[in-house]
């Protein structure tokens, strides 16, 4: 089954770390990425921009209304995700444990429907 590994945390946390601390956080992401690289477990992954860049679209009185900001008015937001093919949720949890748990909370959740799409990378990168 395909699992999502969802990363929740505060927007600015990473930027406020020292260079060494940032390197430690990135090291943990690289550990997971290296483990997945080239394997048939490796699904799409994404890091999201800061929540200030988000807009929220709701319907009000039958018309779509666009407002600034993320949907949830909480301190912790979805910052990014991995998708990973695993036989059991235990396996997905083990993979998630490689991530920097000290600055983020990780949610592991099975994927019900998956469209792989054609995009291979972010346009500008």
């Amino acid at each position: 089954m395909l699992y999502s590994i969802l990363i929740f945390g505060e927007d600015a946390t990473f930027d406020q770390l020292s260079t060494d601390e940032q390197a430690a956080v990135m090291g943990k992401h690289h550990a997971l990425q290296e483990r997945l690289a080239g394997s048939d477990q490796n699904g799409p992954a994404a890091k999201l921009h800061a929540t200030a860049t988000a807009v929220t679209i709701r319907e009000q009185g039958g018309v779509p209304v666009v407002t600034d900001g993320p949907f949830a008015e909480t301190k912790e937001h979805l910052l990014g995700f991995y998708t990973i093919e695993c036989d059991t949720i235990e396996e997905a949890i083990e993979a998630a444990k490689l991530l920097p748990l000290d600055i983020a909370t990780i949610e592991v959740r099975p994927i019900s429907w998956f469209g792989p799409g054609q995009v291979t990378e972010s346009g500008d990168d």
Partner: protein
Amino acid sequence: MTSPQAFGRHFVSARPRAMAALTRYFRTVDLAEDAYQDACMRAVKSWASKGMPHDPTAWLILVGRNAGIDALRRRETERAAVNDPAAEPELGDVEADYADAIDTSDYRDDVLRLLFMCCHSELSVQDQLALALKVVVGFTVEEIARAFLVKPKSMEQRITRAKKKAASVVAALETPSPQERAERLNAVLVMLYLLFNEGYSSHGGSDHIRKALCQEAIRLTRLLLNLFPGQPEVMGLLALCLLHDARSRARQDATDTLVPLDEQDRKLWDRSGIEEGQVLVEKALRRGRPGAFQIQAAIAAVHCAAPSADATDWAEIERLYLALEKVQPSPVVRLNRLVAVSKVDGPQAALDGMSALSGDLEGYLYFHSTKAALHADLGNGAAARAGYEKALSLGPSDAEKAYILGRLSSLKK
């Protein structure tokens, strides 16, 4: 993160909000600073043994408030400013309530008031920035002195004087009217942009400290946008800073010579910062209330969108400068528009427009270097040389001087 170093990150990140709340409470910046420092020292002990609180900022405000009250009592001046019945709350549920309370509009005005205090009109720009760096950001006097190439002793005196001058702002706690709030916000945005520019322009100070100034300006603007999400100019300023900052690695070559935009290696630009800036500009402009920061950010975004200097959409940039002239009429903006005109309609068209500016911009280095470059494009060697030499006489920075000398020598070939 439960190591003492990791606490430091929380102390830095909570500081603007905590200082705003504590300054509101004690009505003096000095007492608030001492109280915050005390709270941080208590946090190191408490967090290490009991774990991190759910909301570190609320914890620091509460504990800082108690610490400040203790200090006042010790000085037997508790009547000075303290009149809150909930002066000594037990931590726990109270902390949670307080965390909710600090998201209210009062709290938003507290942060704005503290920043507004720093841009007091009687303070010089440098004193404004020094005060903000000390009180809001939490830089040490030594760090600020290094940033402005001043002796620590005299920087300390200047900050003390600045605090005194600005004290009346924090003592007046009335909720600002919408118009006052807009004026405060505008003054604060200008100050934050000056702070960013202090780091971004290459005057003095080490690379390290200049980069820190840019980062702090961006951080405070993010905080402000968080508190005022509906203000497109705050969004515009954040976008503008991000778009400039994204290009900083390409602005100087290995010998510290300034590299002009059209010669920069665009592969060195930080794509992530550019993307975020571009999205913020688009979002801000959707609101249909364009202001100077939004338009400047839009101009920066057009530059950043071009895969090469030749591919720049100069016609769009000219339109944007025209819009900027409307909200911010100034000869420098007109000069910048004429640079865009030279790319669209040729150097002669721009030079024709520039003759009207020569009175206003006679003492402006960039006016003469721009004119010289246009003459050089037209093959007027003598006029180009005269323009560059005039620019050299107007006190360029080392990086600018090296650049102009390079141009002059290429003319002689």
